């Protein structure tokens, strides 16, 4: 007996295994942009992962210091190209708080409608890309683009651009929405509802998809909070936190809607939270449309060049991926002294290591997809 035992241990000593260093990215279709992960893999299991960011750094924050408040809007669009309305919103609201500007009612409702629609289009993009990550190539991606296209066409009719809207201004919105705006939004909502139903029946109950996502990459509520996650990725772990409800900005306190939370904090919950959140967004937009009344969209006395008194402000809003905050310091004058963006994606990305270690390599891609990063926002 003793002999046999020693034999086996000798044998295992002969099989010396070596961890493999696996480089994913920066140019890789599954990293959603220019993002690089160096994974140490032991067979199929990930032992360590080091994320490298910064490939898309353009210095938007620094550039904002040289731009007056109107010029900075264009750069904010580019920090978050999938939900540019939401990015603009945080910026202009920070400027408004500094300059103590009153935003007219109509402008607030327009902003709210556009931000929620932008959340829809951004989540559609997530669903499509996530489908590809889990290996359902093609179908969900094309469905997502179809729905997103309808939304983007609407944004183009309103603002003139498909992605970089530059439509919000400190004090309101640049110009009024088209005359047929309300009808167009209703149309788009119908097609979006159908799109969500498509996704629901395509993925949410699909056994293969469930096997790929349930129980993978879960994170507890305490750890998620500790790592600074926010948005749907945090709510999937069961944390009931939504800035739209907890610190209502715009008119969210006049609207009746629910905050969606998950239970397990795994990949599936992060996916499903977003699907349910899209239905809530539709609910919000429908109510907003009823409140939309004619009126001014910019304050009457708006100087040609906006100047703010000295001060500092941190303003956060709930962007599709989480808390998008802008910290702005002004020393007087027409440009910020410092403009810092609190990026939701960068904070959510902190959880990557904790989520991925111990999982399979194939699941690492699914996990990365499930926290829905936009690299332009991570790197700014």
């Amino acid at each position, binding site marked *: 007996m003793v002999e046999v035992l020693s034999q086996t241990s000798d044998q295992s000593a002969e099989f010396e295994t070596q961890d493999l260093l696996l480089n994913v990215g920066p140019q890789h279709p599954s990293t959603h942009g220019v993002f690089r992960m160096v994974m140490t893999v032991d067979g199929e299991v990930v032992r360590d992962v080091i994320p490298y960011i910064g490939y898309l750094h353009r210095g938007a924050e620094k550039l904002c210091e040289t*731009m007056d408040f*109107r*010029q*900075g*809007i*264009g*750069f904010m669009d*580019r920090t978050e190209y999938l939900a540019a309305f939401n990015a603009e919103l945080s910026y202009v609201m920070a400027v408004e708080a500094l300059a103590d500007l009153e935003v007219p009612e*109509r402008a607030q409702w327009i902003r709210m409608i556009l931000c929620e629609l932008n959340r829809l289009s951004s989540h559609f993009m997530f669903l499509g890309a996530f489908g590809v990550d889990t290996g359902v190539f093609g*179908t969900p991606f094309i*469905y997502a683009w*179809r729905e997103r*296209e309808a939304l983007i066409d609407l944004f*183009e*009719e*309103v*603002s*003139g*651009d498909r992605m*970089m809207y*530059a439509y919000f*201004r400190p004090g*309101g919105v*640049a*110009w*009024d*929405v*088209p*005359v047929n705006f309300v009808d167009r939004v209703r149309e788009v909502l119908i097609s979006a509802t159908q799109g969500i139903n*498509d996704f629901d*029946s*395509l*993925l949410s*109950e*699909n*056994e*293969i*998809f*469930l096997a790929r996502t349930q129980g993978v990459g879960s994170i507890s509520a305490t750890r998620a909070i500790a790592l600074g996650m926010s948005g749907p990725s945090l709510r999937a772990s069961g944390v009931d936190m939504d800035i739209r409800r907890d610190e209502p900005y715009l008119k969210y306190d006049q609207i009746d809607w629910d905050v969606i939370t998950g239970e397990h904090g795994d990949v599936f919950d992060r996916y499903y939270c977003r699907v349910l959140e899209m239905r809530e967004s539709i609910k919000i937009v429908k109510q907003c449309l009823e409140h939309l009344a*004619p*009126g*001014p*969209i*910019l304050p009457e006395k*708006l100087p040609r060049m906006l100047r703010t008194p000295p001060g500092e402000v941190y303003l956060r809003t709930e962007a599709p991926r989480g808390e998008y905050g802008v910290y702005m310091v002004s020393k007087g004058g027409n440009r910020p002294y410092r403009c810092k963006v609190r990026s939701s994606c960068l904070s959510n990305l902190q959880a990557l290591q904790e989520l991925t270690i111990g999982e399979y390599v194939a699941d690492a891609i699914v996990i990365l997809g499930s926290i829905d990063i936009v690299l332009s926002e991570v790197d700014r």
Partner: protein
Amino acid sequence: MRGIAKSMARTFAVFLRKPVTRDYPTYHKPIPERDRAFPLLLWDEDIHEPFCTGCHACERACPVECMTVLMKDNPNHKNLDGTSSRRKIIDKFWIDYARCMRCNICVEVCNFDAIAMNNTWEGHEISVYDRQDLVMDLPQLLSQSRTGNINEWVPVLGQTNETMSETDAEVSN
């Protein structure tokens, strides 16, 4: 299995829907009036000269500094037995389309409604092999407006649909 059958059924149902795609190069989707491609200069049909007076307002306001403006005395001014009321006029104008970020600021700051964002397909379908070819000079910037190939939309900041229709009514009165 039920879930998979359901997704198959949905795929099939979508397959039977009307396609949303269009043949792009042969069919050009109508684009909205507000569409923003790149800025171009407008041509005053009545006195056959550009609206632009070379006042540098847009050049100063451009966040990426992609414009270069040079002004000159207008040889067609009334004092010189011309027909124009513009004392100064644009001499040379360059816009580097490669740098422009299509932010619409130049249109907003122009006091003479002399510049507009291109809202036609020509503005979107620019392909060149050399980056230098994207630096547009004055004739290139004016050519589309000169041939009447554009129905520009020049927004006024803060104008609402009500005030817009009011001014329209005034004009028709």
